[in-house]
């Protein structure tokens, strides 16, 4: 290359650089990035490597502001590699490069990576009090804000998920309520329509038959309002208050209310092995939700088995109490085991795969835990451990 040609290229590079800076000022970031790249290209590789690295860094930063993340990452990483070759790994001037990369990954949502770059940038500037260090600190706090925001968002999503799961429980509860309400409605309908036709045909002896008839109707309406009451309690029950809960009572109640008829229809044999009144310091509505999930899952798991078995047992030991639900289905595959309690994992055709996830969340809220084990029946087993009611706690056992 002839010297005057070299000189000309340098002039062109400077022109491109100026053009780029103007574009940045005007907000044309992508155009600015292209101009910076042009400037970098016009300078021969060996002539001024630091200048080239600087151009690339600027181009990357401009791309970043244009939200062209792939281009930005290429430029910034290239710039960093080049400047490291010139200045070594620990030069304070590296901070600006690292800071740009940190901002890039922060914007992309790769927060761990972003944090790493910011930390390295900060370290290089520990002793040097300059504007770059200040900028890094500022970026770090932006990152922290972003993390806080995402965590709040996560909580909100969790709450929304829980709400949808609760609707799911309510739906199941409602279906089974309808089943249970049908019985008394059927009795009332049969008895009254029968009595009415007796009256029409003059077969009704009101002196002896009227009173028992009315009593029967009354007792059936009491049964109906009890069913409604249960439903209302379940829907509105406060899940945050802990008190003494007899686990056997919750198990028997939920089983009889919701699963007895279903299990009978499906020919599922229930093996119940209950300890003598285990009392947990817990919340009965939350426990009901867990049981609904586990007993529904068990029912689904044994669906295609010739002999269908589900086992449930309760226990109390030292300062813990709990229960286990087992089935003789296929169990959990090795592959699914590690993500068993994560949301949206479902081997069922119906449902969202939130059941076990919420079982774990509920157990955590109650100060307990839920674990999987391969059941002696051959399928899946789930053990729920809860704090037992202590004698000095105010609530008397139910």
């Amino acid at each position, binding site marked *: 290359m002839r010297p005057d040609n070299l000189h000309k290229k340098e002039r062109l590079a400077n022109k491109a650089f100026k053009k780029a800076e103007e574009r940045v000022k005007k907000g044309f970031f992508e155009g600015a990035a292209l101009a910076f790249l042009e400037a970098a290209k016009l300078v021969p590789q060996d002539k001024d490597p630091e200048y080239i690295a600087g151009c690339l860094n600027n181009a990357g930063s401009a791309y970043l502001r244009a939200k062209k993340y792939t281009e930005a990452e290429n430029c910034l990483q290239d710039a960093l590699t080049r400047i490291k070759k010139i200045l070594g790994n620990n030069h304070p001037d590296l901070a600006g490069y690292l800071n740009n990369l940190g901002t890039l990954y922060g914007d992309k949502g790769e927060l761990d990576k972003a944090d790493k770059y910011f930390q390295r940038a900060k370290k290089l500037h520990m002793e040097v009090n300059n504007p770059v260090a200040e900028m890094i600190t500022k970026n770090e706090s932006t990152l922290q804000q972003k993390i806080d925001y995402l965590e709040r968002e996560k909580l909100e999503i969790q709450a929304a998920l829980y709400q949808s799961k609760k609707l799911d429980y309510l739906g199941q509860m409602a279906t089974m309520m309808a089943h249970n309400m049908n019985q008394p409605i059927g009795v009332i309908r049969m008895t009254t329509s*029968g009595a009415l036709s007796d009256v029409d045909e003059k077969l009704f002896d009101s002196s002896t038959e009227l009173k028992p008839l009315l009593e029967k109707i009354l007792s059936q309406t009491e049964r109906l309002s009890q069913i409604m009451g249960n439903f209302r309690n379940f829907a509105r029950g406060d899940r945050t208050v802990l008190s003494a809960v007899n686990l056997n009572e919750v198990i028997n109640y939920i089983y009889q209310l919701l699963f007895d008829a279903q299990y009978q229809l499906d020919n599922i044999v229930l093996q119940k092995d209950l300890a003598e009144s285990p009392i947990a310091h817990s919340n009965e509505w939350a426990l009901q939700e867990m049981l609904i999930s586990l007993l529904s899952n068990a029912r689904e798991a044994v669906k295609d088995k010739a002999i269908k078995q589900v086992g449930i047992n309760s226990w109390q030991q030292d300062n813990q109490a709990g229960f286990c639900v087992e089935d003789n289905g296929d169990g959990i595959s090795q592959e699914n085991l590690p993500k068993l309690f994560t949301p949206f994992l479902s081997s069922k055709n119906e449902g969202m795969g939130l059941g076990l996830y919420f079982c774990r969340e509920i157990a955590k809220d109650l100060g307990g835990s839920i674990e999987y084990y391969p059941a002696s029946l051959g399928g899946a087993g789930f053990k729920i451990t809860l704090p037992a009611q202590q004698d000095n706690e105010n609530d008397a056992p139910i």
Partner: protein
Amino acid sequence: MTHRYNLLVIDDEQDFLDGIKTYFEKRDFAVTTALSGEEGLEKLRKQSFDVALIDLCMPHMSGLEVIQKINEELIPVSIAIITGHGGEKEAVAALNMGGIVHAWFTKGSYDMPDLYLRVKELAQVIPEAKLDEFFSLFESTE
């Protein structure tokens, strides 16, 4: 005394049994009740009935199993089934068992007089097995 048809009702709900017994016995039926599949089957083996009214959803021995046994043991009786909420699948299974189930009632959606009329119709039909039994009296036994 007028002729009385024999009805067996198998249901695990005492209130249902009582209601049907009172109503049908005021008319031309003699009603026997059973609270479980096992009890009902015992009674079917010992006594002859015109109609058996069977609830499909019961603990232990289900209505379907009772019908299977009636089939296997060739017990001559007309069968009507009752299902609660959500028992459609079982009802279809019972109806597909091959012609021995003649009527299906769902709890909570029929009136006593309708049930009575339909059951009486069934009681008046002589089951084929009974006819066979009757004609066999005339067959030579060479």
